[in-house]
């Protein structure tokens, strides 16, 4: 394991400290937690927006804190959901009486811990609503299973729910628009290598030099299919097809596209993937309203990428374009 860290067991604490030290006039740490919060929170008249989850996905989640996006991001250990007491502190720090909205990615750990925090907050008289993001089409969706994972599409939920809250939307309005994003966003990823959890010291999985893994998650979980490395065009085609097979987007519809790097992939490669993705969309007559390329939701130093498609409408477009001061998503 080659990492620029101090003690592996202190990596998350060091990271959170380093993040706050970068933007000391904008954010602060809630004492005795790993929760980073906007300095001006709670903001009178505004619904509080809470996200978080395991660490290792940087710039998620603290990078999305700022005017127009999140109010607080609660970090857990690497790939481990934060605990209910920490999430509760985050909720309390941003509640201005208008209620608090939780963005949760669909993993058992995240759901359990955030829901317990929500129950505790409600017991203290705070109104809480939530959305569970499940955009990963690689995973089968069924009410009898855990269901689909939440991956890079979560960034669009942060952006759009954040814009709605910043614009003074009520708790139920924020929930409504967040639900709409979740209903209209799909993603799928692939990897060439896996990252290494600092405290584990060895990679989540091993691939041969000529292998890639399709349908990986963002926690070093192996994917659904292992096969020989294909060209960027083939990869782009496979992921985009799987996404478009899963959502009804037709000729003339408008979408936003996110080509997301998983941590170790040069941006060059993301642009190469984008070339093909845009060609596929053009061929299908789908209008691309906005394209985002870069590292938005990573998995430590995993080499690979994910593609996210968000079906837009006249409500979502201005919210996507609304100003944001979050360091990882400036508009």
């Amino acid at each position, binding site marked *: 394991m080659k990492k620029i860290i101090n003690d592996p067991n202190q990596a998350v604490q060091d990271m959170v400290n380093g993040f706050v030290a970068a933007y000391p006039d904008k954010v602060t740490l809630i004492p005795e937690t790993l929760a980073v919060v906007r300095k001006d929170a709670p903001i009178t008249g505004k619904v509080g927006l809470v996200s978080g989850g395991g660490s290792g996905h940087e710039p998620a989640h603290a990078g999305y804190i700022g005017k127009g996006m999140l109010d607080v991001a609660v970090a*857990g250990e690497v790939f*481990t959901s934060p605990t*209910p007491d920490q999430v509760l502190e985050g909720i309390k720090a941003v509640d201005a009486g208008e209620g608090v909205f939780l963005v949760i990615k669909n*993993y058992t750990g995240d759901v359990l811990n955030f829901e317990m925090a929500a129950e505790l907050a409600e017991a203290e008289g705070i109104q809480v609503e939530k959305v569970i993001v499940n955009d990963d089409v690689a995973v089968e969706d069924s009410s009898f299973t855990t269901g689909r994972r939440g991956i890079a599409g979560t960034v669009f939920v942060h952006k759009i729910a954040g814009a709605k809250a910043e614009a003074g939307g009520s708790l139920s309005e924020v929930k409504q628009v967040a639900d709409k994003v979740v209903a209209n966003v799909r993603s799928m990823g692939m990897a060439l290598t896996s990252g290494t*959890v600092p*405290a584990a010291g060895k990679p989540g999985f091993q691939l041969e030099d000529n292998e890639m893994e399709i349908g990986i998650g963002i*926690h070093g979980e192996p994917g659904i299919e292992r096969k020989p490395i294909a060209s960027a065009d083939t990869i782009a085609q496979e992921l985009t097809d799987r996404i478009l097979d899963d959502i009804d987007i037709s000729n003339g519809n408008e979408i936003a596209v996110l080509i997301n790097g998983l941590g170790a992939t040069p941006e060059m490669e993301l642009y190469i993937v984008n070339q093909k993705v845009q060609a596929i969309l053009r061929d299908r007559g789908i209008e691309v309203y906005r394209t985002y390329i870069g590292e938005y939701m990573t998995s430590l130093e995993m080499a690979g990428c994910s593609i996210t498609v968000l079906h837009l409408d006249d409500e979502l477009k201005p919210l996507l374009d609304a100003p944001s001061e979050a360091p990882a998503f400036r508009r």
Partner: protein
Amino acid sequence: MELDVLKTVEWMEQTNEKMQAKKDELTTLDQPIGDGDHGINMARGFQEVVNKLNDTEYNEVSAVLKDVAMTLMSKVGGASGPLYGTAFLKISTAVKGAGTVERDLFAKALTEAVNGIKQRGKATEGEKTMIDMWSPISEAFQQASDFRPEDMMEAAQAALESVKELEATKGRAAYFKEKSVGHLDPGAVSTFYLFEALADVWKGDN
């Protein structure tokens, strides 16, 4: 079986020792069908449990177990933190008021624990989770009144064999569907160690 405050603390200390020793094994089990942190989570959680217990005076088994529950809940995170936390909270509530916990009471408490985990995680038996270790051990406890630690470990060992053959439908392992068959479930294995530690303490009884 006679769990008093001292023995309960000893149970947790032995559990912690096992979790530290098995940290890498549990993490490795969590890599093919999970995210490779279960050993880290358990080692961190039970170390905090032991720190907490060593810092506190207790008069009641229930109080010890409540602190175990709260510590796991607030120090572990992930899926296993709330689930283990819920289990210990249920046991703590069930044994409230008892100076020493006898087998019958413990058997009743275990039933509560299993129900608590099921409810919290919206899962049931056969989904290749820690439930498939908690539940058969709990069932074994309900049977014979001359139940011995060796019997418990026999049930645990049998559960270990069968959990391997299950297909996961809950937790991260569910993403691998039929590929999860043939792998051990890390949460079931950490539960195995928890009860192995109990067996060791219990054997020292007489």
